[in-house]
């Protein structure tokens, strides 16, 4: 028997209650806390901060809990919350050269000033599923507290002119959240777009460049993770004032560039930066950043990763999820029109066929 799915306020309210119930799960199982999520599912929290474009571990953890672990849903929650926050200024650019290093590796050099600091990483683990869930955790090895100078690899190469200088920003920095995207874009807006872009999307695009769809011959010059200081210029005082610390991940990719007759060949850069510990994202971002410079560097366009409009228009998972999932909304009015058209064309086709057969 037909029941109209025209919903009503009651149906929606009931759906929300069901959702809250499903979110809680079995009441006999202890309720998870946002604090536990923040501590023990830290990398999920980091991703939500990075793509949610908001640095707040507490809120990100809360969003993950509310979203039942769906990270894109959590990112959406954080972004929507971000909209309500007043903006009271812009910070000074963070100086990753002065980072308090937790992890720092370079694939380009065996050893370098500051050393290869492995830090907490999955890289060397064997991916064996640990069935014994609750095991004792050993104390980490204590290292001496002295901090070694840790210059950036790209600065070391740059001193010899082996790599192009880091592009300096000229004029005002664009703001993707205050101006709609308009092509062609400059580096500032490009990096903003990539920084909040979906990790999976950028990962796939970066991967494609390694497989021939626009190759840039990348080396991981440096990946560093740690704390940087956030400073804001207080107008009343007239100088920069520290307002807190952020944990960021930075990736500098070193890429090959075929020099021209006018210029000696040199390495080119790809840059990635994220909130929190998001190595895969920072690396993918650096690969895609470099690929998108194809036109600037006069390279042949061979793959979608080099297509600025393609990449930057589709990198935002909040937009993408919204539009893909909007197909669940009723479309029966438009569909009805299409139905009418197709029915009419079928009638005409049948009539034409019948007329043709009658004539034979």
């Amino acid at each position, binding site marked *: 028997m037909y029941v109209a799915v025209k919903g009503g306020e009651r149906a929606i309210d009931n759906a929300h209650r069901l959702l809250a119930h499903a979110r809680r799960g079995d009441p006999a199982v202890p309720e998870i806390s946002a604090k536990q999520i923040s501590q023990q599912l830290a990398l999920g929290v980091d991703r939500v901060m990075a793509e949610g474009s908001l640095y707040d571990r507490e809120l990100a953890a809360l969003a993950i809990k509310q979203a039942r672990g769906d990270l894109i849903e959590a990112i959406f929650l954080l972004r929507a919350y971000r909209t309500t926050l007043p903006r009271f200024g812009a910070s000074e650019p963070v100086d990753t050269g002065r980072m308090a290093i937790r992890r720092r590796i370079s694939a380009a050099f065996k050893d370098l000033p500051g050393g290869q600091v492995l830090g907490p990483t999955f890289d060397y683990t064997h991916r064996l599923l640990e069935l014994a869930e609750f095991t004792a955790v050993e104390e980490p090895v204590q290292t001496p507290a002295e901090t070694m100078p840790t210059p950036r690899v790209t600065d070391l190469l740059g001193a010899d002119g082996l790599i192009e200088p880091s592009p300096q920003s000229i004029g005002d920095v664009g703001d993707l959240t205050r101006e*709609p995207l308009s092509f062609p874009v400059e580096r500032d807006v490009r990096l903003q777009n990539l920084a909040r872009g979906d990790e999976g999307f950028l990962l796939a695009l970066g991967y494609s460049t390694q497989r021939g769809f626009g190759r840039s011959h990348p080396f991981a010059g440096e990946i560093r993770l740690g704390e940087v200081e956030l400073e804001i210029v207080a107008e009343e005082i007239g100088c920069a004032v520290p307002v807190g610390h952020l944990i960021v991940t930075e990736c500098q990719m070193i890429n090959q560039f075929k020099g021209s007759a006018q210029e000696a060949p040199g390495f080119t850069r790809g840059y990635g930066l994220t909130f929190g510990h998001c190595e895969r994202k920072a690396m993918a971002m650096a690969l895609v950043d470099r690929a998108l410079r194809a036109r600037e560097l006069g390279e042949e366009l061979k793959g979608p990763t080099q297509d600025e409009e393609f990449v930057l228009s589709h990198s935002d998972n909040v937009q993408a999820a919204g539009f893909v999932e909007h197909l669940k909304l*009723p479309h029966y*009015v438009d569909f009805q*029109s299409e139905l009418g058209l197709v029915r009419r064309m079928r009638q005409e086709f049948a009539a034409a066929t019948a007329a043709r057969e009658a004539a034979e």
Partner: protein
Amino acid sequence: MTRAAYNFAYLDEQTKRMVRRAILKAIAIPGYQVPFASREMPMPYGWGTGGVQVTASILGPDDVLKVIDQGSDDTTNAVSIRKFFAKTAGVRTTTHTADASVIQTRHRIPEQPLTEAQILVYQVPVPEPLRFLEPREAETRKLHALADYGLMHVKLYEDIARHGHIATSYAYPVKVDGRYVTDPSPTPKFDNPKMDDCPALQLFGAGREKRIYAIPPHTNVVSLDFEDHPFERYRHDAECVLCAAADTYLDEVITDDRGGRMFVCSDSDHCAARRAAGHHGASLSDAPTAIGGEGGRGR
């Protein structure tokens, strides 16, 4: 953590000002897509954020708001958005078209003619009428600037050569004020003539694509066609089974698994008003309550 205290209609005043500037620009250039810095809203992109931002920016405390989706006040999306504004703006809401000062709509224009005291806000998924002919924004922007609509003409010609008809049944492109080719949003082409010389202001919001456009009151709006293949409205040729209307856009409702169908006015308010005025369709008494309301069975 304390609950966030929201500004009237959710958006802060700076944002509303930014949106209103875009709206004014849009009104000054009918049919032209004005870029604006769309904000993330509490509903997903693709679910009406553009329309919501436009409405939020024009609502005042004395406005009366109607929200419809697929012509009905009762669909989930319309309910959700109406609740959103009831909560964040505290404005009066209504299902009666005649009583509303602002009507936000998805995919339909109300059957009842609008007045100069009303504003119609459309939710738009893809604002660019040339998008599926030319994916690049940089290129379509140029085409509009140069009034180079060759792509569109070619598409229309090709439709007739191939199908004998212009194969567009909704989101049917129109020329506004003799200048810009515009997408009316996925309204059925049946609704296109209502856009022409309309006394109400028509505003279009695309949140994900970050564009606002407008058709000022009493503007010339023409659906693209050929002289010998003129634009035709399409509606299913039947009367509404509830109110017997023969000139409204009808929804097709499948009633059983043996091919049973009934056709009902898409515009729920219009249909209810007709029924209240004494018009009765063929099967009013047979319709399930959810469609026919108290006039149907199962009361």
